[in-house]
């Protein structure tokens, strides 16, 4: 009986963790995606996209975008600048050591990414 509550908590914890992972906020999704692309993690980046876009997320394309990001130095994080909730469209300002980039994100209804674009600052 003494161990009943901790055991119950441990039993429920994995489900809570899975639930949280599935309901990431748009900034968290954008940050995770940006970190994956910045690191050149093609598999990690591909897994976040909708099924239709996954074939286009190749290691080569990821390395192109990653190289663009590395021009600005080390990735520091991002902050949201605008959103269109009805369209699930979000814009973020990604901060790097030597500048910022505009991150445009569009989400599908299931939370996967239907568009992710990076716009370097002029």
């Amino acid at each position, binding site marked *: 009986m003494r161990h009943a509550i901790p055991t119950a908590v441990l039993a429920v914890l994995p489900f809570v963790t899975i639930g949280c992972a599935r309901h990431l906020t748009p900034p968290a999704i954008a940050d995770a995606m940006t970190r994956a692309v910045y690191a050149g993690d093609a598999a990690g980046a591909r897994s976040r996209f909708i099924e239709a876009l996954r074939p286009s997320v190749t290691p080569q394309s990821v390395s192109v975008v990653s190289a663009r990001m590395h021009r600005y130095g080390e990735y520091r994080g991002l902050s949201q600048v605008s959103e269109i909730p009805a369209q699930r469209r979000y814009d973020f300002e990604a901060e790097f050591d030597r500048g910022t980039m*505009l991150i445009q994100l569009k989400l599908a209804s299931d939370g996967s990414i239907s568009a992710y674009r990076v716009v370097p600052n002029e």
Partner: protein
Amino acid sequence: MRRAAVIVAAVIVNCTAFVQSPAHAFESSGIIIAGSFLGLFHHHSTQPHEGRCAGELHGDRRTVAAQRARIAELERERAAQHARIVALERSLANETKQTSVGTLTRPHPMVVARHDPARQPRPESYGWGSI
């Protein structure tokens, strides 16, 4: 407090006058008291009370501080709105034409008109999917 001191002083003067000359005591005391009240009235009408001045000064400082805080808040809002406008302009420029990964996209004509006079490089867009 000051008025009470003046009245007490007037009473003392009156008593002294009464001892010296009882016939003129009431007359002199009346003059003294009336003069004291006139003096007090003049003092109040020309110079504000110290407590009221301090209160007004304190109130003015609070007002100035509140106005400065409001100005700072408005400046922060302005900076945030400017950042949003810049981001939206860039977003608009990117949404007009998007191509495949790594290729140059042409900005919106309005943005070109605004930025091209300085011959600045056009915004490029990289990524996957259509915004």
